[in-house]
């Protein structure tokens, strides 16, 4: 027994020495519990083999992810060495010293942010926005997109019925309004002996769901956070006539084209609704598309994908995350080693192959990329027109206000869209005043 332990210890030491002379650490990486996280576990096995470090993963389901991880950071916890934090956390992570600034490390290791897609660097890595101060490496590009039941859309009977009902051809929608019309057509329709519904959209109250869903419509109509970027002048931007119309549209969508009981649904519920054949269309993050395409029941040639349709303009809601080193970690060197390994082009290529959305130019600009998956071209198109929520250090407060105002209006029938957005400006003004920015 003793010998075995001794041998194991020796083996570990040898492996550690073999890597780069540093002691083997056990690194904990924190992220959300979802499909790409499983792919990352698979990918990281290579790192474990190469470096001698071992990896532990702490994956938290999305509805609790922000709450728990921000709490962890704010309490100065040492649970996570590496954190793949949501894009909006970057401001707080940088200003409050939760994340390690990576500029020196990038310079030393020859990692260039020019090798990553500009939209992702801007959104996931920089603070203050757009300045060359990096607190994360783009880890996972993502945006909100749509998918639909291709088998229903291509069914001649259904096509005929749609033509009769609307006078138009049933196709991938090219505007938000057309999408609603299609969803309403499917709502309550009997297909193969079962009642089907229009689309599964985000309505979740507790974390960020309804905001991420509704902004898909708001951005497309022309909603803006500020009239002039950086000035926090929200009057006339947040509550512009276009924004009001977009929000009214989202409510109409919710009321007339979603399955019953989807009053508090986010990613998981939406996936369930689609996979169980309840809905004809659904919105969700591109991150899930590889899994959806592989699904034995509703994947393959039964599924199609499209980018969030434009209305007044093309726009998609940004998702995705950068990977950061937590400043409270005792194992920052090993954590940086992981980032260095992760940034390599061949690792990035494998990352995409396993189902993660690489943001590395060598992957995205590869001529074969567009055809490497049925949603790859859509992904590039979406990432070309993404918009993100506030990334301010006070982002959580701003988000909670928007969640409340949107859910109150869309689901709980409180007031009008105009009132909801007016109140939102009041809430946000208060926050920015507290921040000393107004």
């Amino acid at each position, binding site marked *: 027994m003793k010998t075995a332990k001794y041998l194991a210890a020796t083996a570990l030491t040898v492996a550690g020495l073999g890597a780069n002379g540093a002691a083997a650490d056990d690194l904990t990486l924190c992220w959300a519990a979802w499909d790409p996280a499983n792919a990352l576990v698979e990918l990281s096995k290579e790192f474990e083999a190469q470096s001698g470090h071992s990896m532990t993963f702490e994956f938290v389901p999305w509805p609790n992810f922000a709450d728990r991880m921000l709490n962890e950071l704010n309490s100065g916890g040492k649970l996570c060495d590496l954190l793949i934090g949501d894009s909006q956390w970057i401001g707080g992570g940088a200003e409050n010293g939760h994340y390690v600034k990576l500029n020196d490390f990038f310079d030393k290791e020859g990692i260039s942010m020019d090798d990553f897609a500009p939209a992702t660097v801007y959104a996931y890595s920089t603070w203050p926005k757009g300045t060359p101060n990096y607190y994360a490496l783009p880890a996972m590009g993502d945006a909100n997109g749509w998918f639909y039941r291709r088998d229903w859309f291509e069914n001649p009977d259904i096509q005929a019925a749609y033509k009769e009902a609307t006078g138009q051809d049933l196709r991938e929608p090219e505007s938000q309004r057309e999408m609603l019309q299609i969803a309403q057509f499917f709502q309550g329709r009997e297909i193969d002996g079962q009642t089907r519904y229009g689309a599964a959209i985000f309505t979740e109250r507790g974390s960020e769901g309804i905001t991420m869903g509704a902004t898909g419509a708001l951005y497309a109509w022309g909603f803006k956070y500020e009239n002039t970027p950086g000035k926090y002048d929200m009057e006339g931007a947040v509550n512009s006539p276009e924004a009001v119309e977009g929000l009214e549209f989202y409510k109409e969508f919710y009321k007339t084209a979603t399955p019953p*009981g*989807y009053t508090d649904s986010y990613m998981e519920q939406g996936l369930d609704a689609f996979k169980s054949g309840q809905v004809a269309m659904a919105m969700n993050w591109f991150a899930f598309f590889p899994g959806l395409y592989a699904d034995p029941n509703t994947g393959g040639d039964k599924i199609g994908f499209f980018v969030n349709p434009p209305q007044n303009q093309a726009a998609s809601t940004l998702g995705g995350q950068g990977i950061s080193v937590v400043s409270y970690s005792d194992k920052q060197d090993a954590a940086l080693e992981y980032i260095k390994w992760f940034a390599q082009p061949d690792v990035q290529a494998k990352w995409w192959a396993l189902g993660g959305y690489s943001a590395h130019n060598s992957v995205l600009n590869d001529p074969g990329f567009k055809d490497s998956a049925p949603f790859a071209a859509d992904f590039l198109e979406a990432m070309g027109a993404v918009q993100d929520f506030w990334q301010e250090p006070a982002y959580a407060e701003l988000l909670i206000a928007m969640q409340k105002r949107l859910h109150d209006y869309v689901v709980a029938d409180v007031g009008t869209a105009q009132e909801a957005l007016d109140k939102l400006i009041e809430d946000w003004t208060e926050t920015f005043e*507290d921040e000393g920015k107004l």
Partner: protein
Amino acid sequence: MTDNPIERAATATPPRLARRIKGLSDRAIAWIFVAPTIFLLLAVNIFPLIWTINLSFTNFRANRPNREVDYVGLRNYERILTDSDIWLTMQATAHFLFWTIFFQVLIGFTLAWLINRKFKGNDLWTTIIVLPMMLSPAVVGNFWTFLYQPQIGLFNYVVSFFTGVDPSSFEMIGSVNLAPWSIVIVDTWMWTPFVMLICLAGLRSIPDYIYEAAAIDRASRWRQFWTITVPMVLPFLMLAVLFRGIENFKMFDLVVQLTGGGPGSVTELTSINLKREAFEKWRTGYASAYAIILFVTVFGLASVYVKALNKVKER
């Protein structure tokens, strides 16, 4: 020889130990025994309370350690008491408090009265009825979201079985009108046994001879119920209401798991609202003022209530 047991004990033990024991008067022992408890409560309850009061006058944010902290006087209190959204959460809490207590007293008392008919096997059934209240509210609340699912959930199915309504036609948690009742139903399910047990103790404390005397006076059963049973049980019932009132005023775990405060904010009880302010928005100073206001409210209401309770007891 002396009669003092401690002296006697002292003479019976070795000198060094004896000196030590002699040195420890009852008073010293009392302090040694009580001190750790008091110390712990001071450290984990009183010191934090004082800290909270101090924070409530500042604009401190726990997530912004690098920011300067200013004293803002009573501004936090002013903002809370004039915020119409907070009054809405107070209303939601009041609705929840009133109806849970109403149903729990009604059902709990009825059950206790029925169990006190002393039918065979009443012990076994009492134990079964009591089970829900001992369970983890968060875990139970989470599972009730499953029971409340429109189509697949047991609750809607049972309702449709008895009433013939389509089980997918109503959403207990999702609907603005039903959600406040969905939390009342689960809380009532969990805590009715609590009221029942206390009422049962009250009923069993009434001596038989009082009823016998009333029967000799030819008082009707109805009259006996109102002149003997109810007044005798009342102090017990009021105690139950006090406990339930305090507990439900603090309510967090069950409801946060069930509805998370939604839809919109119709089930956002004060504790849930406070959690958002303190641990999601991280407005620590503001949330501290909020906490103090809640504490004063509970403490004030409870004190008034206890006075009333004592009056009833004296009668």
